[in-house]
């Protein structure tokens, strides 16, 4: 009897030890998903802030974990992908220190203000990521916030000594392999079997976010002479970009190239309306009276003298009415008439001449940047309640991306994108038209399993609180676009993600 009991219980024990339920075809089995003709075992991502996972005006851990390369790498893992390492920051505040002094701001969070309205504020706290604390390892994610196309091949871009002068990048300084290393060199040195390259955004973006305050360097082939807000010459872009693609494909690696979206797709340029100034009829009438002489005498007079064209005279006319009005602004693309106005026949006093020097009203096809929302309608001089920005004080040029400036951006980005697409075709690489995809988010949005992803600032779900960089959900959408292109190009079946599983803006009060 003892034996029978023993055998019975041995049998029972075998039963419940081997009891894990098995699917007919488990997703975790090799071969369930395929990388097709690509080899995903060593994936390296190269790019700028978008690749790094920058969001909410800073780089921080949870943002990095939701970078599109990291999301992709998790999905690659189903199809032979290897480990993916990122140069994680030290905290979720996001600011950088240089020898203990804070050199970049903390991230934005969505906080409810004293009036009960939520809005972006910088998260309080002392950050702990000191760029002098060099990371000795190598990282799959070679996304460097702030990098322009030519920076990726610039030796010394990761030299911490160059950070204070702007010659080097504080983010790259954290993990550059040496003082003279290049981003591209450090990427290629990892012998990637697969890469992604998304670069060129900053070659137009800093010009755009600065309201076109930089210079369009088209025609200038020496990037070492460029200012930080300038537009990169398309030939320079083409040269360094093809150099990068050549280097990354050198090891017969496959990869994916991503093009440059339009600035008009991002809330930084679409949130503040162009006619943001509400006026009643009396105020509008009084203002019109003040600008009467400018409209009816000065502008026609200058046009008659041939100082400005009749078109410019028409462009510069100021007109207010009851309701929503376009603010007045300074446009440095206009002829500067300050000096002329101080001479005969106008002989205006200097302050008035300076006010009118490059004055016009914002037009409906201009773009007012997000940061203007904190100055428009304010009275900078508390002793002068009449001095209202946008009404009696022109909005500075840095807050407005004028039509003329937009045209320069479009010209440059169109040229960059032609280069990217042509290279993808020539090299047989996957190509992602992020420009079209992002325009779709901005125009109508992308339905997903919990709503519609749009570019609406704060609530749309796609863009973080800096108005430029995506949220985790926006990055997940990006990752899906790229995976789709990889699957199509390389005959792969890498699974996508549910973007509804990825968060949007972070709410927290300081």
């Amino acid at each position: 009897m003892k034996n029978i009991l023993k055998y019975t219980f041995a049998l029972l024990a075998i039963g419940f030890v081997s009891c894990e339920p098995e699917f007919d075809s488990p997703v975790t089995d090799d071969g369930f998903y395929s990388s097709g003709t690509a080899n995903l075992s060593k994936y390296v991502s190269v790019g700028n802030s978008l690749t790094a996972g920058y969001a909410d005006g800073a780089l921080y851990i949870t943002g990095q974990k939701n970078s599109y390369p990291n999301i992709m790498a998790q999905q690659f893992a189903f199809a032979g992908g290897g480990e993916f390492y990122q140069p994680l920051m030290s905290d979720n505040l996001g600011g950088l220190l240089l020898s203990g002094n804070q050199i970049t701001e903390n991230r934005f969070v969505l906080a409810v203000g004293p009036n009960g309205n939520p809005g972006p504020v910088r998260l309080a706290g002392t950050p702990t990521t000191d760029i002098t604390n060099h990371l000795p390892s190598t990282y799959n994610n070679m996304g460097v916030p702030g990098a322009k196309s030519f920076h990726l091949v610039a030796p010394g871009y990761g030299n911490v000594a160059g950070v204070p002068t702007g010659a080097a990048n504080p983010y790259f300084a954290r993990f550059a392999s040496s003082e003279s290393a290049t981003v591209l060199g450090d990427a290629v040195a990892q012998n990637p079997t697969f890469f992604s390259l998304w670069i060129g955004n900053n070659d137009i973006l800093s010009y755009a976010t600065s309201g076109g305050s930089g210079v369009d360097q088209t025609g200038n082939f020496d990037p070492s002479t460029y200012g930080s807000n300038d537009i990169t010459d398309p030939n320079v872009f083409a040269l360094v970009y093809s150099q990068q693609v050549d280097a990354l494909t050198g090891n017969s690696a496959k990869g994916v190239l991503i093009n440059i979206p339009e600035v008009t797709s991002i809330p930084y340029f679409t949130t503040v309306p162009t006619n943001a100034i509400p006026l009643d009829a009396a105020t509008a009438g009084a203002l019109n009276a003040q600008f009467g002489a400018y409209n009816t005498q000065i502008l026609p007079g200058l046009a008659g003298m041939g100082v400005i064209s009749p078109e410019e005279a028409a462009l510069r006319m100021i007109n207010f009415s009851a309701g929503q009005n376009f603010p007045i602004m300074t446009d440095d693309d206009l002829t500067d008439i300050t000096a002329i106005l101080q001479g005969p026949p106008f002989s205006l006093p200097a302050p008035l001449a300076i006010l009118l020097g490059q004055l016009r009203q914002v037009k409906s096809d201009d773009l007012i940047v997000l940061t203007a929302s904190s100055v428009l309608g304010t009275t900078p001089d508390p002793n002068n309640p009449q001095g209202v920005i946008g009404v009696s004080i022109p909005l500075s040029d840095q807050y407005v991306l004028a039509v003329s400036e937009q045209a320069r951006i479009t010209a440059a980005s169109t040229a960059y994108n032609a280069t990217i697409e042509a290279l993808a075709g020539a090299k047989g690489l996957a190509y992602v038209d992020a420009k079209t995809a992002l325009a779709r988010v901005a125009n109508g949005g992308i339905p997903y399993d919990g709503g519609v992803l749009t570019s609406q600032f704060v609530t749309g779900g796609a863009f973080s609180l800096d108005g430029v960089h995506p949220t985790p959900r926006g990055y997940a959408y990006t990752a899906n676009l790229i995976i789709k292109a990889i699957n199509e190009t390389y005959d792969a079946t890498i699974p996508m993600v549910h973007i509804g599983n990825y968060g949007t803006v972070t709410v927290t009060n300081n």
Partner: protein
Amino acid sequence: MKKVLVLAVFALASAVTYAGGYRVSLQGNKSLAMGHTGVAVINSSELVFFNPAGLVYLDDKFNVTAGMHGVFSNIAYQDTETGANAQTDSPMGTPFYLYASYKATDWMAFGLGVYTPYGSSVEYEKDWAGSHLVNNIDLKAIYIQPTVSFKINDKLSFGGGPIYVTGSVNFNRNLNRTLTDLEGNRANVTIDATGVTSWGWVASTMFNPTDKLHIGATYRSEIMLDAEEGDATFENIPNSPLTPFENTGIKASMPLPAELTVGMSYDFCESWTVAFDFNRTFWDVYESLDIDFVNEDIPDSKNARNYKNASIYRFGMQYDATKMFTLRAGYYFDESPVREGYFAPETPRNDSNNFTAGLTVNLGEHLQIDASFLYSHFKEIDASYNYYFENGVAVPFSGTYKTNAFVPGLGLTYKL
């Protein structure tokens, strides 16, 4: 905008759920070994549960039986669209029973039963793909049931009694698919209620057309467990007026459905018995699980369940092999009460085929060791739960499930 955000954070928040099909049919090792038949089997004081009316036909003056089962249940989940996958790592469930019967006279018997017919213990990997529906759940209900039985004659008897239930539940899920604190930790809520009590009743009859053929019927009433003083504990909530979650009390009700069993058994060739039971569980009372947070700033949680009544078909066989050994085997088919589109991951129950076996070892005149084993086989199933909402939009949670359960059990019977 604030309002929109509160909704965004939160209208989705609510899919607190109990197990689907949280009936645990493990009310005796002898019966379980025979496919959990027993409404018409005169065997032991397990009849306190299966059919109190039958107690008057026991030969023993006094019969007490007690035992326990170890429930090793496993759920695997995968979503081929995204590659998401998870395995439960549930703690062993330990349903138990204790029955005693006493034949006061030839025509009257008393019984007392303590048993655990409802319960669930499921533990997923924290923050798995369905964590907005459940991370883990532990549901327990203990029935305490005194009975009295009367013999009308050798062919007919009746029995019944009140049931006192004490229950508890502990349940954790993430608030939604995305909310985290500043460090990225998922916001979650734990619902805890213990010492929830209620009353019900049981009534049964047994009819013996011949001394070989027995027919029985038992009805156990629905019992509503009303938790009046539960707790909700929120964790990893961002510091923001937009996420006004703070620890509070809860009220919730959950039904333990009524169950009707009819069946028969037949003794043949001296040492053989066959039994057939039919269960009907009246799950349709489980329409929705609603949790009322005492703090009015926290919207109440409403979770559609919409269960349907379900049947179980049971077959069992017993063979008195020797004086020492009685061998048993059985099979039952268990219909799921879960309708299509309501397949929630706390207990992903589709129809199951169940195989049982067991034996009794007689150690002398008075003492028996009862052992049983159950294997529950569920087919792989593609299913979804379509009643989780984000901002008023239904967000189905779908995937492929594969479930099984292995349940060894051991008990003792003492008779005089």
